[in-house]
C-alpha cells in the first residue's frame, strides 16, 4: 500500500507520483524491480530497529541521552594526549556550515568546485609554511594514520625495512603504526629515552641505526609535552645512513618552534585538530602529511593533492586534483595508499582558523600556551611530594607528566577525588608506562585560566593533605 503522502526525504514516494512512474515504466509495482534477487536472500521480516518519527521527539531524545555527558563547559578538563581543547572562533563554524562545502563531494569536476579546491590548496600551502616543507596533501584521517602512511612511504622510497620510533610515543600512534606496517614485514624499533630529560638517548639511537633503516621518527613536542632540542643531531644521524628523517608535530606549537624543514625533516606528519576543530570525543581528527619537493618523495605520497594550473585557453588561474596516478581509483593495487574519503572539511576549518589568527597570532598563542604550561608547573611545584614535570630540565609545551608516587596514593585515586569536585585530571599512563609509576599527562591551553589552574592545584593540595 502506497500512502497518499510521501516521505519528506523521498520526493517521489507519494501515491500519485509513484503510480505515474510505475505506469510509465510498464511495471505493476516497485517489487518488480527486485524480482531478480534470489528469494532465499530476501529479508522476510521487518528489521528490528527503533523508530522516532517526530522531529520534536527525535531532538528531545538525543538531547536527553547526551545530557548525561559532562563536557568541557561543565567541568575543568585537563586532558590532551592526541586531542586537545582549543578555542574555536565562531567564524570557523559559520564557514564550514556553508552547504556548498558541507554537502559537496570530492572535487572530481574541478570547474564547478573551484572554491573547495582553492580552500584546500590554501590549507596545503599554509601547512607548508608551518612545517617548512614544500608539499602537503589535502589531509589524512589523523596523526596515527599519517605516521603509519609515512612509514609505508619510507619503505617504498628507500626499500629498507626498519622504522625507528621513540620509546615515548602515544599508544594509538604506536598501535596504528604496528597495524599498518606489520603486513609488509617492516620492523618498528624503539629508541630509549634519556633518563634525566626524557629526550632521545642518542647513544641508543646510534646503536640501532644501520643500513636497513628507512627512517627515523621523532615528535616535537613529545607525547609527554617535552621539547627535544637534539633534532639537528638526529637529522644528521638519520641522513648519514641514507634514512629519511620524519618529524611529528602539533601545529599549534609552530608559531614558536622552528619549522621541521629548518632542521632537516624530509616528511612531516601531525594532527591539525587543534586548528579550529572541536574534540568530538576523538573524531573526526585531521592528519597532517607534508614532504620536501623531491620527485621521488612526491610520487610516493599518499592522499589527495591539489595543484594550481590555468584554463586551457590560459585566461584564468584554476585549481584541480593532481598526480592522481598515485591513487587507488587509477592505480588500484599498485596505488601509494588506499585512502579515498579524507577529512577535507576539517582542513577547510583549519585554513579558516589560521587565516584569522595569522602567523603573528599563532606566535602569540604559542607564547600564551607556553606561559600556561610554565605557570602550571610552578604551581604544581608548590605541592610537596608531587613531581611535575616528571622530566625536569627540559622545556615543556602544553602538556607535562605529573607523578604522585611520593604521596602514597594511586593516580587513579587522585583522579577520582578530583572528579568528585568536578575537575577532570589528565590522562593516566600507569598501564602504558608502568616504569613511570603513578603518573598522568596534564594539558594546559589558552582555554585554561590561571584560576582554573589554581583551582586544580588547590584541590590537589586538599586531597593529598
Amino acid at each position, binding site marked *: 500500500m502506497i500512502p497518499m503522502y510521501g516521505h519528506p*526525504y523521498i520526493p*517521489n514516494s507519494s501515491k500519485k507520483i509513484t503510480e505515474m512512474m510505475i505506469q510509465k515504466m510498464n511495471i505493476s509495482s*516497485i517489487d518488480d*524491480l*527486485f524480482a*531478480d*534477487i534470489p528469494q532465499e536472500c*530476501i*529479508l522476510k521480516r521487518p528489521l528490528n530497529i527503533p523508530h*522516532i518519527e517526530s522531529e520534536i521527539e527525535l531532538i528531545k531524545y538525543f538531547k536527553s541521552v*547526551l545530557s548525561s*555527558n559532562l563536557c*568541557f563547559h561543565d567541568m575543568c578538563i585537563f586532558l590532551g594526549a*592526541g*586531542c586537545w*581543547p582549543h578555542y574555536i572562533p565562531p567564524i570557523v563554524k559559520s*564557514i564550514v556550515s*556553508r552547504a*556548498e562545502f558541507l*554537502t559537496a563531494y570530492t572535487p572530481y*569536476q*574541478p570547474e*564547478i*568546485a*573551484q572554491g*573547495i579546491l582553492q580552500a584546500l*590548496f*590554501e590549507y596545503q*600551502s599554509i601547512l*607548508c609554511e608551518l612545517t617548512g616543507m*614544500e608539499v602537503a596533501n589535502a589531509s589524512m584521517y589523523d596523526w596515527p594514520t599519517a605516521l603509519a602512511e609515512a612509514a609505508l612511504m619510507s619503505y617504498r622510497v628507500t626499500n629498507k625495512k626498519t622504522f625507528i620510533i621513540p620509546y615515548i610515543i602515544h599508544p594509538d*600512534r604506536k598501535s596504528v603504526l604496528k597495524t599498518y606496517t606489520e603486513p609488509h614485514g617492516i620492523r618498528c624499533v624503539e629508541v630509549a629515552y634519556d633518563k634525566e630529560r626524557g629526550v632521545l638517548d642518542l647513544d641508543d639511537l646510534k646503536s640501532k641505526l644501520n643500513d636497513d633503516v628507512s627512517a627515523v621518527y621523532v615528535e616535537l613536542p613529545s607525547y609527554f609535552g617535552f*621539547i627535544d632540542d637534539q*633534532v639537528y643531531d638526529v637529522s644528521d644521524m638519520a641522513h648519514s645512513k641514507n634514512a629519511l628523517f620524519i618529524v611529528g608535530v602539533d601545529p599549534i606549537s609552530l608559531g614558536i*618552534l622552528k619549522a621541521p624543514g629548518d632542521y632537516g625533516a624530509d616528511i612531516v606528519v601531525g594532527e591539525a585538530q587543534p586548528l579550529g576543530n572541536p574534540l*568530538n*570525543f*576523538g573524531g*573526526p581528527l585531521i592528519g597532517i602529511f607534508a614532504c620536501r619537493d623531491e620527485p621521488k618523495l612526491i610520487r610516493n605520497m599518499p592522499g589527495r593533492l591539489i*595543484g*594550481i594550473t590555468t584554463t586551457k585557453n590560459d585566461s584564468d588561474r584554476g585549481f584541480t586534483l*593532481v598526480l592522481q596516478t598515485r591513487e587507488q581509483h587509477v592505480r*588500484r593495487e599498485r*596505488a601509494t*595508499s*588506499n585512502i*579515498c*574519503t*579524507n577529512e*577535507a572539511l*576539517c582542513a577547510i576549518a583549519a585554513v579558516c582558523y589560521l*587565516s584569522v*589568527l595569522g*602567523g603573528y597570532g599563532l606566535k*602569540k598563542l604559542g*607564547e600564551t600556551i*607556553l606561559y600556561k604550561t*610554565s605557570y602550571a608547573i610552578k604551581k604544581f611545584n608548590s605541592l610537596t611530594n608531587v613531581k611535575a614535570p616528571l622530566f625536569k630540565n627540559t622545556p615543556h609545551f602544553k602538556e607535562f607528566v605529573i607523578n604522585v608516587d611520593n604521596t602514597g596514593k594511586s593516580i587513579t585515586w587522585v*583522579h577520582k577525588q578530583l*572528579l568528585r569536585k568536578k575537575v577532570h585530571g589528565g590522562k593516566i599512563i600507569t598501564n602504558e608506562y608502568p616504569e613511570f609509576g603513578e603518573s598522568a599527562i596534564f594539558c594546559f591551553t589558552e582555554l585554561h585560566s590561571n584560576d582554573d589552574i589554581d583551582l586544580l592545584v588547590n584541590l590537589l593540595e586538599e586531597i593529598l593533605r
Partner: protein
Amino acid sequence: MFKQAKWNEKLIFEYDESNTYKLFFEDLPENERIYIMNSIPGKIRRENPPNIPQLSEIEAVRHFTRLSQMSYGVDLGVYPLGSCTMKYNPKINEEIANNDKILWIHPYQDEETIQGILKILYDLSLWLAEIVGVDKVSLQPAAGAQAEFTGCLIMRAYHKDNNEENRTEILIPDSAHGTNPASAAQAGFKVVTIPSDDDGCIDVEALKSAVSARTAGLMLTNPNTLGIFEKNILEVSKIIHEVGGLLYYDGANLNGILGKVRPGDMGFDIVHINVHKTFSAPHGGGGPGAGPIGVKKPLDEYLPVPTVEYDKHKYYLNYNKPKSIGKVKGFYGNINVLLKAAAYILHMGYEGLKKVSEYSVLNTNYFLKLIKDNSYIRLPFNPSIPRKHECVLSLAPLYDKTKVKALDVAKWLLDRGMHAPTIYFPLIVKEALMIEFTECESKENIEKYARALLEAIELAIKEPNKFSSLPQNTSVKRLDDVKANHPATYALSWKMYKKKILSRTPHLN
C-alpha cells in the same frame, strides 16, 4: 540559465597585510613574553612568525563565502555521482550533532562522564549489525577504504590463527571500486582479478578456477558497480567458503537493498558501511566520513580495540580483546559523523529505510526508461535486468560517431547547473557514465536530467566541435590537466608556485 559565481578570488597569500589579528586568548605583557620564549633553546625557537597571512575577520568571511559560492553541493542541485550516494543530508542531523555534549567531550574522559555518547554508539552498533545482518560492529574506521583495510587485516589474522598463513590471495572482480585492490594490497595480499560475465556479474566459472588453498577471501559489492544484483551470490558464497575463504562486502552500494536484503543473509562474513553514503551524513567536500565494519562470529574477536560494550549497568570501552588486529586509527572513530547516522536511522525506522532502497531503485530504472531508446547511448550488459541504486551507460556509440567523449558530455551537464555523473568508471565500460540519483531526487529533476543528456547527444551529432570549449558557465573554463600534472609545471603549494611559476612568469603576479 545557470551561471556559477566567479569572483576572481585571490589566494589568502595575495591579500595586502592588514596587520590585524584575532586575539581570542589572554595576551602576555612584553617582559613575560620574552622571558617565556627564552625557556625554549635558541636552536629550535622560531624567531619570526610563520608566513601565514592575517586577514581581518570581514576579509576572511568574504574570502571563504566567495569560495563557497564557487562550489557545488547537494543543497544546490542534482548530484548523481555513481557509487557516491549523494543523498540529501537532513538538517535535523546537523542540529542534533551540533551539541556541546558531543563537540566538547574528550575521548579520554572518565567513563562515568560519557555514558550518554557511549549509549548512542553502542545502540548504533546494534542497529547497524541488524541492518546488515552481522553479529558485531566496530565503529572505528574513518572511511570505507579504511574499513576495507580493516576487513582484510581481519581475514589475515583469522587465517593466521588457523595456521593458514599460505592464504595470500584476495579475489576481486574487475568491476570493483579501486579501493578494494588498494586496501587488499595495503594489507599485504596479492590481488587476483576476476572477470565479469555477459550479465555484468562475477564470472562464476572464472571464480571456480581462481579459488585455491591460497584464497584468503573475495571482496564484492552487491549490487555491483554496474548497479546489477549479483544473482549467483549464494553460489559465489559457497565457492569461497568451500575452499576456506571469507566473503567481504563493500558497502558502497548498500543504498539499493536497504531493508530488502542483508549482506549477512547472502553469506558475507565481513561487511562495511559508508555512513556518509547510505546513512545521510554529508561528504564535506571529500570527508570526513565514517566506515563502520561488521563481522559474523567468530571474527568479532579480531575487531579493532576498543569496542563499545554494555554490561547492563554501564557502557564501557572494551580493550580486552587479545586477538584484535589492534587499532586502525586514533581513538574510537569519527564520532560526530556517526551521531548523524544514528539520528537518521532512528528517524527513518525500518519502513523509512526500506523506502530508501525502493525509491533509489525506482529512480534509476525510471531514468533508464527515459533514455534507453537513444541509439547513441548503450546500456552495457544484459539490459533486461533491472538496475538497482545506479546504472552505468556507455557513450561509446556517440564517441565512435562524433569523437565527443563522456568527459565532454559531463562538462555540458555542468553548464546546465547539474553535477556530472561519475565518468570512466567502472573501467570495464568504455566512455562510462555512472549515474546514481538516490531516493532523494524528484521525478521532475530526473526528467530534466534525462532531457539534458539527450540534448547533449543531439548537439554532439550536429556540432561536435562545440564540446571542447565547455564548460562555459562554471567559475572557470576547462582546466589544463597537462600543465597541472607535468613535473616542470606542477605547483602543489603557494611556496612552490612562487618558486616555479611566478619567478618565471611575473606577469601572472
